[in-house]
């Protein structure tokens, strides 16, 4: 089996009666309404059809890894918030997991539960706003997006009450969490979680049967199972391509083995934008199930384990990964016995999911290229780091 690689269709310019035609080269981005940030696609068009597409990265590059290598372990924590600024909580968690692997800190029970709650709330936030943005890319005038943001706001309030900030939470610490949640927070969360399915019902009614959305997304941006595995696609995108692989189930990090939840995936080898959109819609319902169980079972107690005052791990290597809302978010740390990591590496799901952008966009329409990019779900803070 050889690795499937991208090949541009053998495209030939038509020359007729001495008239020369050429492709229309459009540089979509770095400021374009729907590249989700400063991302560029150099597109070659034949009429409306995409003949070639080259993603161009690096407009938001700040060498996060180098910064972190010149900083104490703890000081990188707030910078992980800024990787994928929709999911600061899961970013924190992945980094904390990697650091905890280096020094083996016990995480108290309550902190583990709160970590799961935060991560699943984050997943709701990410998926709901992603679906909103995705429909926006399809050309809806922001209505689904604003409904999504209406609900996101409620979860953002919860984050703010717990951590003090809406997006840059900086809430996780090695061995636990920074502080306990305030009084009554769990009740407010329960209320939000209980009402979320109603919103999802409404949202599904608005979107899932709409003929225009169906015809715009089905058969668009197909990603075969083999290519998805080979290209290292993770997260909802992988499951939409027909692979049942969820790191919450495979690695069972944290306490995910205690919760009963299902992982939606598709069985057929289509993997188009509709699948990716629907898998995210279905995943939100499962997140709500996890949240309900976690909120029911959460014990009292300490919030942070016995972490050393000065974090100075012995020389070792650790790779930890979590199922972030966008895919596998991994942190690879090499300690050399100093308070700074010798090597600090982020495995960004957004960047690696973009590997197949070209393959999916070729010979689609330019409007589809935007939709496909939307369905990949990227955040440029993470792509460029």
């Amino acid at each position, binding site marked *: 089996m050889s690795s499937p690689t991208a090949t541009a269709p053998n495209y030939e310019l038509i020359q007729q009666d001495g008239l020369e035609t050429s492709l229309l080269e459009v540089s979509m981005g770095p400021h374009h309404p729907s590249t989700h940030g400063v991302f560029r696609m150099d597109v070659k068009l034949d009429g409306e059809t995409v003949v070639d597409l080259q993603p161009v990265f690096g407009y938001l590059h700040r060498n996060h890894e180098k910064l972190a290598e010149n*900083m*104490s372990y*703890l*000081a*990188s*924590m*707030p*910078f992980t*918030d*800024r990787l994928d600024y929709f999911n600061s909580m899961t970013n924190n968690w992945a980094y904390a997991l990697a650091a905890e692997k280096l020094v083996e800190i016990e995480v108290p029970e309550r902190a583990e539960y709160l970590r799961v709650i935060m991560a699943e709330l984050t997943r709701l936030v990410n998926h709901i706003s992603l679906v909103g943005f995705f429909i926006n890319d399809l050309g809806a005038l922001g*209505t689904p997006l604003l*409904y999504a943001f*209406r609900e996101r*706001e409620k979860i953002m*309030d919860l984050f*703010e*009450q*717990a951590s*003090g*900030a*809406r997006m*840059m939470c*900086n809430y996780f610490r090695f061995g636990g969490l*920074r502080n306990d949640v*305030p*009084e*009554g927070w769990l009740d*407010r969360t329960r209320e939000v979680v209980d009402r979320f399915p109603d919103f999802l019902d*409404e949202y599904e*009614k*608005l*979107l899932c*049967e*709409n*003929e*225009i*959305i*169906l015809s715009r997304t089905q058969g668009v941006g197909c990603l075969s199972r083999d290519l998805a595995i080979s290209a290292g696609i993770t997260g909802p995108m992988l499951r939409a391509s027909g692979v049942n692989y969820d790191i919450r189930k495979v690695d069972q990090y944290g306490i995910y083995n205690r919760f009963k939840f299902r992982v939606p995936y598709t069985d057929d080898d289509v993997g188009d934008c509709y699948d990716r959109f629907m898998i995210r819609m279905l995943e939100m319902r499962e997140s709500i199930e996890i949240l309900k169980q976690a909120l029911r079972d959460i014990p009292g107690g300490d919030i942070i384990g016995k972490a050393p005052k000065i974090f100075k791990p012995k020389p070792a290597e650790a790779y930890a990964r979590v199922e972030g809302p966008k895919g596998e978010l991994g942190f690879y740390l090499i300690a050399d016995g100093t308070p700074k990591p010798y090597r600090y590496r982020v495995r960004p799901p957004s960047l690696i999911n973009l590997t197949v952008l070209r393959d999916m966009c070729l010979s689609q329409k330019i409007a589809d290229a935007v939709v496909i990019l939307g369905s990949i779900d990227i955040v440029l803070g993470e792509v460029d780091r």
Partner: protein
Amino acid sequence: MTLLGSGIFKGMAVTFRNFVGSYFHRERLPTNDYSWRTEGSLPQHAGDYPKEEGEQLRDTTTVTNYSRNFPMLLHDGSEPMDTIRCVACQICERSCPPQCIYIEKSTEKKEDSSGKMQFYPATFDIDVSVCMSCQICVEVCPFDAIVMNSQFELSTPNRFGGLLLHQGDLLKSNDYYHKIHPEEAAARDKRIADEKTAKEAKKKAAAEAAKKKAEAKAGAETEAGDEKKEVAE
């Protein structure tokens, strides 16, 4: 067979319900009227924007109570510089990830609020154009001297000077802290008090133990020697 275009009609029903609902159900309309009472009372905290004054005072669950923005320095009494908690140990300066804190230690010691002789910061600047509100300075501070403020109306036309907060801008009283973050401030004060009593109890116990030991060891020694020992403690 479904009705022709039924998906579109369902969607239109949803938007219509939201259209009507936004007039009747408050929670469908997350934004509030962007208005405040009089010309003079400009918003000071995030909570001011969506809320009327009375409503905001009653509400302890949202924005101001929990949010953090930029750090501030705490002082205990009425005269800020005399009761400043900061002892210019520069831990926060060293652990600040974007390195936005600048401290100069004083050359001589001064009495702090509890009467102890301590250093104090001769200069304490925070460049809020760089600060990323991560709260790590608050966590590392062993003296509870620096906490997060929730004031955010800091915009200024001066890009260089205006965003560099000096000691005078940063110093806030503990009462102010209690007003903006009541729960957190109460917890912090309780912890400080607990630590203090624990420390005192420990000290007392240690002193007593030492006393006993000394007594047992050399019961016949003079009082002067005993005193000497206590001083050495």
